[in-house]
């Protein structure tokens, strides 16, 4: 049963299917729209970033400290959990909105400094060192001399469309979502347009899949729409398994209603009445947030049967992915939902013709679907002519590795890599030298400093022999070893290769072996071992070509990207490992030489006691020495030494 309150919102949505609902729609104040919009509040609101990244950084402890702080002082405040704004490296982020004042964000709020920050802000002074920025709060006085958060270096070059509400609005409040424009595109579409028109529109705005390949979404949608079938399915792929890519999780946690809306529009456009969200099992918070959002959407009659008397039915269910990298491939994903091993199959028939249980099925990445309502809001149907040719939209990227600012950002397509690396990411930590940027996960590419002026979009990167991938961007500095990274990615792929195609199953393992050989001890050797290793590198290229040519799915076809691109760019580094038996970054532990600085060593014997190989000798209170022949380079002594007396040569 739909409650009376929900009925009013449905009515508002029906009338006002273009603009966000404003306080004018609620003259008697019955709905409390002003409160829902977080304008003209009567008691202070404390917003806490409770995304997974915030929680790992300790947001729960911060919250406990804040609750205690306000309890002791008997101050009545409202707590509001929000998702992640994107600047994960500055979490826990806490916002404060005092009545009549603009909302203001603080970063790195931990239990130790929470009381000081709150004390200051509640007495109207701003603790500048923790400021992230203030928000544009309507009907509220801005804080003087406090920058807006959009002016922060991390946010300045961004164009936040899909992420617009993440970290700002409450993910668990559908009313707040609706008054800020949520579900408007969906209602407008199902009440006013036919599915073909939506497909035409998606083609006109040139929406391309954000999962990595950039395949036009309209092609899939139209095929599924035109294929006859009693039952059709829409699957939203949120099984992002690239290490370092967590855009889907952030959207699910921060703005689940946008995902529901995008899925609902897509389902309508292809004529599906059943939609499935396929989400990673580790995403407990995201799943909980989505479950709550789905329940609310059902309660407000925005999902279910005959939605707003349009005759359109839709149910969305959540399927938890049991975890396999290859399930990012659509046929493998479908096979996993059917209860089998997630192995890809030959295409055609394409899933849009014959997918889940043999029915026409469209599989889209979560980001692609979340883009749909925002596109519709910016360029309404019927006004496609006003759309600039080749709208490329935005891409969500995650920044990790050695970046100063780490987290998740949304950039306009075509922004240069330099702007991403030195602008948004803020450069390299500890002022180290930039070495390379790795795009995408294990199947991605690395690019060196000379490629920094490339435009970050599907086509320019493809021309440069790279790919946008999932959007994960890892920054590497001089202290990172390219071989070690290639080895890491290769081992990942060995584990994740599904085993269907022999070249991928065996080939990736052999490639990993070759890389292991290059980075293994002994450091000094006789005979032909050096030659063997060099032969290995030459085989690496051949092997990569075979795997690429003979694998069925994207995993195999892209398995060698990371190795080949780093081999191309950093061949010298490979040769160093092979001939000089040296890792210039000092990462490959087997090739390390440690030496104890006799001036600094106090003879505390700690390293000698911890050394698993008993390779350190020396008596108490006298400098110690490392027996090089025995040392395996594990680095335990280096980690344990309290006097920084052990150096890596």
């Amino acid at each position, binding site marked *: 049963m739909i409650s009376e309150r929900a009925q009013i919102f449905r009515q508002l949505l029906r009338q006002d299917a273009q603009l966000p609902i404003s306080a004018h729609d609620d003259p008697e104040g019955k709905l409390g729209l002003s409160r829902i919009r977080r304008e003209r509040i009567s008691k202070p609101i404390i917003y806490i970033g409770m995304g997974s990244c915030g929680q790992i950084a300790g947001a729960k402890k911060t919250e406990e400290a804040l609750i205690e702080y306000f309890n002791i002082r008997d101050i009545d405040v409202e707590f509001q959990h929000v998702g992640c704004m994107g600047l994960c490296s500055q979490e826990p982020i806490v916002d404060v909105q005092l009545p009549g004042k603009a909302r203001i964000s603080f970063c790195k709020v931990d239990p130790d400094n929470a009381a000081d920050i709150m004390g200051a802000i509640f007495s109207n002074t701003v603790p500048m060192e923790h400021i992230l920025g203030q928000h544009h709060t309507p009907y509220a006085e801005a804080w003087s001399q406090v920058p807006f958060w959009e002016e922060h270096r991390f946010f300045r070059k961004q164009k936040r469309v899909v992420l617009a509400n993440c970290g700002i609005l409450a993910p668990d409040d559908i009313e707040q979502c609706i008054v800020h424009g949520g579900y408007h595109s969906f209602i407008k579409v199902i009440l006013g347009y036919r599915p073909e028109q939506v497909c035409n529109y998606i083609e006109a705005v040139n929406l391309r899949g954000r999962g990595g390949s950039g395949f036009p979404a309209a092609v899939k949608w139209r095929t599924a729409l035109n294929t006859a079938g009693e039952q059709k399915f829409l699957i939203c792929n949120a099984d992002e398994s690239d290490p370092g890519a967590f855009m889907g999780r952030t959207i699910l946690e921060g703005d689940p209603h946008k995902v529901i809306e995008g899925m609902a529009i897509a389902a309508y456009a292809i004529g599906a009445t059943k939609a499935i969200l396929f989400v990673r099992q580790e995403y407990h918070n995201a799943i909980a947030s989505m479950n709550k959002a789905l329940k609310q959407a059902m309660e407000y009659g925005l999902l279910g049967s005959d939605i707003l008397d349009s005759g359109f039915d839709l149910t969305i269910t959540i399927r938890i992915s049991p975890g396999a990298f290859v399930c990012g491939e659509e046929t493998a994903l479908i096979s996993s*939902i059917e209860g089998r091993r997630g192995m890809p199959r030959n295409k055609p028939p394409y899933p849009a013709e014959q997918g889940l249980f043999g029915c026409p099925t469209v599989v889209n990445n979560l980001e692609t679907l979340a883009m749909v309502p925002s596109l519709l809001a910016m360029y309404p149907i019927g006004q496609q002519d006003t759309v600039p040719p080749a709208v490329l939209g935005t891409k969500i990227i995650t920044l990790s590795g050695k970046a100063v600012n780490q987290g998740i950002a949304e950039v306009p397509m075509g922004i240069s890599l330099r702007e991403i690396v030195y602008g948004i990411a803020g450069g390299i930590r500890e002022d180290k030298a930039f070495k390379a940027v790795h795009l995408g996960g294990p199947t991605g590419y690395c690019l060196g400093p000379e490629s920094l002026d490339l435009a970050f979009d599907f086509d320019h990167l493809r021309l440069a022999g790279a790919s946008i991938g999932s959007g994960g961007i890892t920054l590497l500095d001089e202290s990172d070893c390219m071989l070690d990274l290639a080895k890491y990615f290769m081992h990942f792929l060995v584990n994740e290769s599904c085993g269907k195609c022999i070249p991928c199953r065996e080939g990736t393992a052999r490639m990993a072996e070759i890389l292991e050989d290059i980075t293994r001890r002994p450091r000094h050797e006789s005979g032909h071992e050096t030659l063997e290793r060099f032969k290995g590198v030459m085989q690496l290229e051949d092997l990569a070509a075979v795997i690429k040519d003979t694998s069925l799915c994207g995993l195999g076809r892209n398995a060698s990207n990371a190795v080949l691109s780093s081999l191309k760019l950093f061949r010298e580094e490979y040769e160093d490992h092979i001939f000089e038996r040296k890792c210039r970054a000092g990462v490959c532990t087997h090739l390390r030489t440690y030496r104890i600085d006799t001036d600094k060593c106090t003879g505390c014997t700690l390293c000698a006691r911890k050394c698993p190989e008993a390779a350190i000798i020396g008596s108490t209170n006298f400098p110690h020495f490392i027996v090089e022949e025995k040392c395996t380079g594990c680095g335990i002594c280096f980690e344990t030494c309290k006097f920084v007396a052990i150096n890596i040569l």
Partner: protein
Amino acid sequence: MAEELEFILSQYPRHQRDKLLPILNEVQQAFGYISEASIAAIGQYLGLPTSKIYGVATFYDNFRFSSKGKFHLRLCRGTSCHIAVKTKLQETIEKTLAVRPGELSRDGLFSLELAPCMGACGLGPVLSVNEEYYTQLTIESFLKLADNLKSFSN
């Protein structure tokens, strides 16, 4: 245990293959791992040979076949955590706690899992012990943590 398993199965009235993974998932949630007995029971319920179920379950990373320890450790193996570690952190953990990934230590105290990227890339290396997170871990801070955990269990 049998009753709880029966209850889980009864929530899937249609005995169909596509319910296999949700059932396995729920069994793991309830018991912490998937036991031989539960695989047999699921097989009977869905009319599938246990070999097939085992084949499907082992394909995926998230299913475990031995129980969790008193302290369940998850070490992030994302790219950022990987490049943040300059030492053999994983080996140290395995050696110190006498446990291998996916397994349970003999004393039943520790189990180790290599987790895919946890998404806290700025704080790596990340280790979680029973959902409590330890960030920017070094061998030294881990050894201290291990001592704490061991003394706590005594």
